[in-house]
């Protein structure tokens, strides 16, 4: 046959440049194929610890983001009213002058009048340094509205959480249970893990009201009623206690379950953990029956221990747990209706968990020594693993629910064991190893320490002398004492209300706060544009850094245009949000694989300039000259602690890893190494890390901490009890009376579940409305991507069969959705595999007309919509004259998923409602046709 001859070995590219993807926060390694200096094709880096060669849809579409017509071209100065999108392009010099003109007096007189908040910033250790140098207490990243419940509950309970902190042992686990995950930050690793588990035919449980994505491939789908996971989990705990299917040895050795709890109701230490004179936690030693320090060599901590002193019995944490969780209120029959899971199924799941954990235990032969000095010859594994994210954390009961899940893992003895959940370096770290919040302001000077951290009692709250909140977002106050990530979602509304005080300048980076990252979007738009009697904006100055023509851009007065992720230096640092895997410590960089063709600058480099012009400590030398020429300079030469800098790899002469002098050739070494540095965790340090001295010593060498710090898992979180004690009237720092009852009720040192239904008027609004991350979209910024927007150009509201039939909906119908706060009218679609009281849509698809260089009739603007219009940062009034925040009372986490609504059929429209008028595009719109090809 005369077949055409084709070239089977065409040239692929001139050169491959290896850097780090930033189409999302997973930070995979990418090979950027270059043809005559331009980006031709992007694929995964096979050597990279995070993605091992694979790449998700977003990552593969990077070329369309890097070349998006929505890219900002130069610094912008607002000329029209806020929100109009009318700007004029200015030079960087002009931009810096404007910024310095605004910020210098603020710093001189009252630094707290600058609120500097960043979005999914991956340079927080840098941006926070800048904010500290400036002296404002008002700094945080987006964690408060994202998933602080997950992070904080993990740290307080066991020194690390899921996502960046830990992962299931995908290679060994025999059963994975995933709670409330659509995508997570670990986008690719989770998919790779599920792939491995599936290939082995191991079992996957998906606990989620919606059966899509991971939950679609799950062997068992538990279509739970939103907000009730805590109850479901505690019921599993109840069953396991009842059957004695608990890893007693694990609990006795590695957790504070055997630690004695002060039982003296009259004491102001009532409910606190008992300590000996050297302040060591006290347990009863089963060998002697006597109290002993938990960490003494040879002690056999007694879970059943109790001590009677002066007529008062101090019982072990474990006894308190048994009492609490054996209570019939947690019996499967008692929770079945609320959770929407039958009692039989709950029992079966408990049985299966126990069966895998105890009857199918695995062993990894390996000698290691624990912190009590005992050597072991193996790691015993309980191959049940869990993963979870915002599905349980983005509720007002999320902190306690996350705690409950961790407690479940811990009583099964799976955490840090083969087949269980494993921490990723530099985690685990005990809560005490993290800083406490700092808020002491001195005009013209730096803050007294890091802004964010972990509170361990009332003394750590960020309050002024008069007891009023020190921070604009009211983080670390009695309203949410453990708000470790701050509360970005409260900043604009508080700044607008002037409560706790007025600010002068809102400085934001990489957060679309006027749109998809705000609750009550319409309201926030009004706050950003609101004027006072004199006709001045209520929030006087807004400076913003974005790389693209987003909705937020139009509301800023000054825009500092960032580069795309392929045009700048970045570092993914162990001091920040690391990218490590359970078996390896790693960090990475981004570097300009192409130079920007626009007058734009990496934001961090801009901060180096601005910091120097403002004379911020840390950003100027003794002689007042600029300390870091740009971010690359900072990455290479900044020293945090002796021998420790932003990057751990290739220090000193390039052969020192973890600790070492700064190395001028470090960035090149990273580039030569594929853009990252990685070192494997030694085999004898691979498991039981919190208690394994082999790990602890290695961790010190690698600079995760400066001395070994083994610790016990906190099933019982003492700091919470301290806040309760204050609420009960003990101590000098006292909560306002209206908060006492709530603190007593919610700050239980042992995991509990409480409902948020009444607060959200579930009686009138019976349906829960949720959003999910589309795997092929990243929040708002995916819509500027010509390839991705063809996949998710608009977002129907998915409705379960029951509601579909009640309203006799049919294809093409629209619905009016009403919440206590607002109303939207949107297209509906039917989904049978959906909890019958839940509706949902894809997150952040809806766009404002004129944004993202899209044409004004783009489907994102006409058929797309945001659920955010229905959500409010405050709960509906309940008649006590107060407005309570729509946040977790412990951490302040935004309770996105407590949203309750009513659905009714509406006549079809041409345009979803609300329809926000267009903004002018500072960059025009994109071309009519795309034929993207460099080579011929």
């Amino acid at each position, binding site marked *: *046959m005369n*077949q055409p001859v084709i070239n089977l*070995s*065409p040239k692929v590219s001139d050169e491959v440049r290896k850097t780090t993807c930033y189409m999302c926060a997973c930070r995979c390694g990418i090979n950027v194929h270059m043809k005559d200096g331009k980006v*031709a*094709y*992007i*694929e995964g880096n*096979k050597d990279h610890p995070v*993605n091992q060669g694979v790449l*998700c*849809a977003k990552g*593969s*579409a990077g070329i369309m983001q890097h070349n998006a*017509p929505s890219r900002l071209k130069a610094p912008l100065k607002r000329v029209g009213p806020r929100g109009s999108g009318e700007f004029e392009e200015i030079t960087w010099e002009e931009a810096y002058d404007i910024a310095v003109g605004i910020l210098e007096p603020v710093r001189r007189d009252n630094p707290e009048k600058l609120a500097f908040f960043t979005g999914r910033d991956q340079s927080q250790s840098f941006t926070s340094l800048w904010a500290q140098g400036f002296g404002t207490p008002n700094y945080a990243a987006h964690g408060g509205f994202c998933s602080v419940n997950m992070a904080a509950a993990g740290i307080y309970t066991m020194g690390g959480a899921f996502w960046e902190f830990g992962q299931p042992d995908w290679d060994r686990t025999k059963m994975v249970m995933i709670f409330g995950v659509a995508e997570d930050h670990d986008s*690719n690793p989770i*998919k*790779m893990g599920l*792939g491995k588990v599936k*290939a082995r*035919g191991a079992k996957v449980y998906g606990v989620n009201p919606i*059966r899509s*994505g991971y939950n*679609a*491939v799950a*062997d068992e789908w538990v279509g739970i009623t939103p907000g009730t996971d805590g109850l479901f989990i505690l019921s599993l705990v109840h*069953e396991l*206690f*009842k*059957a*004695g*299917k608990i890893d*007693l040895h694990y609990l006795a050795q590695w957790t504070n379950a055997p630690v004695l709890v002060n039982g003296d109701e009259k004491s102001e230490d009532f409910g606190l953990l008992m300590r000996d004179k050297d302040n060591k936690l006290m347990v009863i030693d*089963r060998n002697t029956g006597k109290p002993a320090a938990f960490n003494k060599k040879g002690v056999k901590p007694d879970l059943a221990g109790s001590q009677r002193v002066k007529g008062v019995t101090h019982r072990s944490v474990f006894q308190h747990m048994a009492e609490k969780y*054996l209570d019939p209120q947690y019996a499967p029959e008692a929770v079945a209706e609320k959770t929407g899971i039958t009692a039989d199924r709950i*029992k*079966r799941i*408990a*049985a299966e968990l126990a*069966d895998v954990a105890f*009857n199918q235990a695995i062993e990894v032969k390996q000698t290691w020594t624990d912190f009590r000095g005992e050597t072991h010859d193996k790691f015993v594994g309980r191959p049940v693993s869990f993963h979870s994210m915002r599905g349980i954390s983005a509720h007002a009961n999320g902190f306690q629910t996350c705690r409950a899940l961790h407690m479940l893992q811990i009583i099964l003895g799976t955490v840090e064991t083969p087949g269980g959940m494993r921490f990723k370096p530099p985690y685990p770290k005990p809560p005490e190893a993290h800083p406490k919040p700092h808020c002491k302001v001195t005009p013209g000077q730096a803050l007294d320490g890091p802004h964010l951290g972990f509170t361990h009692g009332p003394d750590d709250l960020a309050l002024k002398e008069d007891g009023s909140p020190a921070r604009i977002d009211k983080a670390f106050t009695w309203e949410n004492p453990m708000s470790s990530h701050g509360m970005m979602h409260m900043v604009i509304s508080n700044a607008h209300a002037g409560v706790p005080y007025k600010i002068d300048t809102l400085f934001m980076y990489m957060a679309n706060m006027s749109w998809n990252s705000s609750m009550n979007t319409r309201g926030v738009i009004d706050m950003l544009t609101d004027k006072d009697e004199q006709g001045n904006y209520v929030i006087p100055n807004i400076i913003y850094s974005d790389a693209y023509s987003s909705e937020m851009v139009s509301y800023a007065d000054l825009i500092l245009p960032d580069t795309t992720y392929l045009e700048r230096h970045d570092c993914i640092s162990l001091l920040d949000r690391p990218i490590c895997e359970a078996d390896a410590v790693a960090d990475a960089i981004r570097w300009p694989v192409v130079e920007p063709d626009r007058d734009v600058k990496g934001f961090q480099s801009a901060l180096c300039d601005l910091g120097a012009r403002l004379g911020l400590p840390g950003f100027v030398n003794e002689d007042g000259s600029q300390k870091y020429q740009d971010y690359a300079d900072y990455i290479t030469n900044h020293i945090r602690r002796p021998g420790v800098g932003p990057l751990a790899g290739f220090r000193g002469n390039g052969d020192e890893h973890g600790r070492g002098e700064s190395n001028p050739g470090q960035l090149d070494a990273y580039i030569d190494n594929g853009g990252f540095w990685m070192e494997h965790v030694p085999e004898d340090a691979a498991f039981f890390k919190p208690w394994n001295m082999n790990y602890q010593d290695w961790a010190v060498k690698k600079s995760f901490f400066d001395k070994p710090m083994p610790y016990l898992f906190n099933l019982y979180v003492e700091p919470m009890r301290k806040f309760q004690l204050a609420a009960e009237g003990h101590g000098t720092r006292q909560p306002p009376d209206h908060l006492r009852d709530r603190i007593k009720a919610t700050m239980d040192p042992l995991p509990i579940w409480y409902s948020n239904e009444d607060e959200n008027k579930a009686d009138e609004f019976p349906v829960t409305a949720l959003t999910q991350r589309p*795997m*092929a979209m990243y929040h708002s910024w995916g819509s500027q991507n*010509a*390839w991705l*927007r*063809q*996949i998710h*150009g608009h977002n129907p509201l998915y409705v379960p069969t029951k509601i579909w039939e009640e309203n006799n909906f049919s294809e093409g119908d629209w619905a009016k959705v009403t919440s206590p706060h607002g109303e939207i009218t949107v297209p509906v679609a039917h989904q*049978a*595999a959906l909890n019958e009281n839940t509706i949902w849509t894809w997150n952040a698809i809806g766009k404002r007309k004129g944004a993202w260089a*899209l044409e004004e009739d*783009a489907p994102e603007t006409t058929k797309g919509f945001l659920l955010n219009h229905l959500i409010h940062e405050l709960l509906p009034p309940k008649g006590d004259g107060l407005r309570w925040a729509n946040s977790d009372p412990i951490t302040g986490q935004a309770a996105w998923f407590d949203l309750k609504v009513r659905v009714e059929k509406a006549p079809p429209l041409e345009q979803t409602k609300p329809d926000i008028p267009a903004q002018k595009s500072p960059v025009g*719109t*994109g*071309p*009519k046709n795309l*034929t993207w*090809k*460099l080579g011929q």
Partner: protein
Amino acid sequence: MTTLPTHTEKKLGLVIDLDTCVGCHACVVSCKGWNTENYGAALSDQNPYGKDPSGTFLNRVHSYEVQPETGAAQTIHFPKSCLHCEDAPCVTVCPTGASYKRVEDGIVLVNESDCIGCGLCAWACPYGARELDQVEGVMKKCTLCVDRIYNENLPEEDRQPACVRTCPAGARHFGDLDDETSEVSQLVKERGGFDLMPEQGTKPVNKYLPPRPKDEQIDILAPLLEPVAAEPQGFLGWLDKALEKI
């Protein structure tokens, strides 16, 4: 040459695991990326930033909902690209000879310089695996990455289709389905791989692995738990005994 070869030396194709596909669209986009820059004309997009954007894709992921007799409905993500049929109607209908099936490996290709863009082959394909590019006016289809799998400019390990290399879940497998010993043939055997629309008589080379049974359909493996104690007191009794044992 539009007469089909009587025999091909290999039957290269894909095996797609519907039990594992999470519907992430990674394969869709990496395919778009590779084939826009490589084999033949770029895969163009119309109104890429406007109303009704639409473009040429060689691989698309559908989602279906299946309602079993009993139990909850299931969601199944369903990637689809050219199945490189043995009896490919798209080839024989082609008036110009642009469409052909390679003798070496059975890959079905379009020789774009011969294609008049009549669209008949797309009509003949039961599966919707061919798309006429609106800018070039030539027929585009999955090439099984013929310009990757033998490409000496790529490292050995990368000589596989872009979509397979990128699939995070490992739901896509590439190989010779003519060779029973190959990994793909083994998978098809073990997991009961099946053809799409067998009644169309196209004899697809690509195979699909069915989703494993889900939910209540699996009977319970673990025995239900036996209570050791009803109320706290009894529990402590048990606890004491249990602690003695460890």
